[in-house]
């Protein structure tokens, strides 16, 4: 067993914190994109993921994803993180590796929430997240991220498909689940006739900036070491994202006539998504090509929901599913032996890597879509997943959380104002108060 490396450990601790920051970043990115009456619920869905998944991870998530010798699912040998306190994982303390992977498990369900903006019952979301990470994410992470000398997950350790940081396990997975949830919950009232444009674009751009920053931990951290490969992943992440942001706004300039801030933010995220699986297997020139492809294709893909009539509210399908597919498949063309030891098709490496990439992408897409659809139906049929029409029109922030994102009115005492102070303490019955008065 290799010795614990303090440099690697330091970088992975920092990377874990960076990846955690992506989820609040995503919350702002999504929160700014919804209408003013749902911004808090949108942010709340992400924060709920941080809470729920962190606990499930310690209880059984890590064990189901990163233990055992079964190709499909882990075991219960590290329930409660039992036996991991003093052991090593590569050159890291095992708990450091586990903490890093936890952050991935948090953001993946949070990504789904963008597909069901404005209309998901909060309790339904809590139940769905709990079921989904357990039945979909933990197994898929096992397939894609678990290396164990040929006895790990089937995609990573047996098939030999490349997914450096989670193009399949995180992005295709969340994108397919988002599509399933959007289909089960149905369209928002008024969609697609009403524009439903973003209510706070500075918040969207702040969120995109935090995602970009945190993504260096996500991608360069996935080298699981502070080394040259981490450096390659870091540079690839930067240039692919830059290229995709520019490619998106050029595409929409031709299509819609304007370069929008929503476009530059979406393009950056599309680039980050697409380079995620590929950042450890392509050169920086290959990364620019992937970024341009992702920027153009995702910008076009966000129009699909209007053609097919599914309300993927914040384009989880158009960006994460399509971007994840672009990155995962382009590895088959653009992988470089200088980086990963295997050449892709365009470097003379033949079709075999492309075939493996397609199998990995298709397997995750199919499993995630089918199981997510069933889970969403179970939630809808039991405790209910969709809010009532009245709650939806009044706004989910006030009906589900008793708060509103912005209280600008000074005239009437704010969004809930009009009356005087409530003198009656909560829980005291009316007749008791009248006696005292």
């Amino acid at each position, binding site marked *: 067993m290799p010795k614990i490396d303090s440099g690697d450990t330091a970088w992975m601790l920092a990377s874990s914190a960076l990846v955690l920051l992506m989820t609040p970043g995503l919350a702002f990115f999504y929160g700014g994109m919804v209408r003013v009456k749902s911004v808090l619920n949108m942010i709340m869905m992400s924060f709920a993921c941080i809470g729920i998944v962190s606990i499930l991870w310690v209880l059984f998530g890590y064990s189901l994803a990163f233990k055992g010798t079964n190709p499909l699912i882990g075991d219960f040998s590290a329930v409660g993180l039992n036996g991991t306190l003093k052991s090593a994982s590569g050159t890291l303390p095992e708990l450091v590796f586990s903490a890093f992977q936890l952050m991935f498990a948090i953001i993946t369900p949070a990504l789904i929430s963008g597909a069901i903006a404005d209309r998901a019952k909060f309790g339904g979301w809590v139940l769905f997240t709990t079921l989904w990470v357990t039945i979909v994410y933990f197994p898929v992470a096992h397939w894609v991220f678990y290396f164990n000398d040929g006895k790990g997950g089937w995609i990573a350790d047996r098939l030999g498909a490349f997914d450096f940081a989670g193009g399949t396990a995180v992005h295709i997975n969340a994108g397919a689940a988002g599509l399933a949830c959007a289909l089960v919950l149905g369209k928002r009232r008024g969609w*697609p006739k*009403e*524009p439903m*444009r973003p209510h706070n674009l500075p918040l969207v751009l702040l969120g995109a900036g935090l995602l970009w920053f945190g993504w260096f931990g996500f991608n360069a951290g996935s080298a699981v070491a502070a080394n040259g490969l981490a450096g390659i992943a870091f540079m690839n992440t930067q240039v692919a994202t830059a290229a995709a942001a520019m490619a998106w706004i050029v595409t*929409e300039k031709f*299509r*819609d*006539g304007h370069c*929008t801030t*929503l*476009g530059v933010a979406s393009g950056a995220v599309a680039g980050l998504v697409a380079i995620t699986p590929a950042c450890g297997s392509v050169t920086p020139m290959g990364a620019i090509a992937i970024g341009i492809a992702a920027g153009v294709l995702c*910008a*076009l893909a*966000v*129009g699909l929901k*209007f053609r097919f009539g599914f309300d993927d509210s914040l384009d989880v399908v158009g960006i994460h599913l399509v971007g994840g597919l672009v990155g995962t498949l382009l590895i088959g063309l653009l992988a470089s032996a200088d980086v990963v030891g295997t050449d892709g098709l365009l470097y003379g490496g033949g079709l075999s890597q492309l075939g493996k990439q397609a199998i990995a992408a298709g397997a995750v897409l199919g499993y995630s879509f089918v199981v997510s659809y069933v889970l969403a139906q179970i939630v809808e049929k039991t405790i209910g997943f969709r809010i009532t029409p009245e709650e939806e029109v009044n706004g989910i922030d006030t009906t589900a959380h008793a708060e509103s994102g912005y209280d600008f009115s000074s005239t009437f005492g704010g969004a809930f104002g009009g009356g005087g102070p409530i003198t009656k303490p909560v829980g005291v019955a009316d007749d008791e108060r009248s006696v005292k008065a």
Partner: protein
Amino acid sequence: MKLITAIIKPFKLDDVKNALESFGVHGITVSEASGYGRQKGHTEVYRGAEYTVDLVPKVRVEVLVDDGEAEDVIEVIVKSAATGRIGDGKVWSVPVDVAVRVRTGERGADAL
């Protein structure tokens, strides 16, 4: 007295305000408004989807004037708000029974 209401393009507000001030109007009330006229708004493309925008942003200017000045004030507003393009807006007036200055209790023309 007459209450003159003008719905104008937002970017013409300064011109209308200055013209009314030069004419000698003592006070106006301005609010943001939205609506449509004969053209029924327009279409816009955003993020790959085309939308009809049927409620176009406008500004509503209200002026309370003496009967004798009403026609001239309407003329001043129309002249200063016109661009000659569609969506320039509308001006109308309605008779007003009572006007009171809250601070002093003055009524009628004295309250203007």
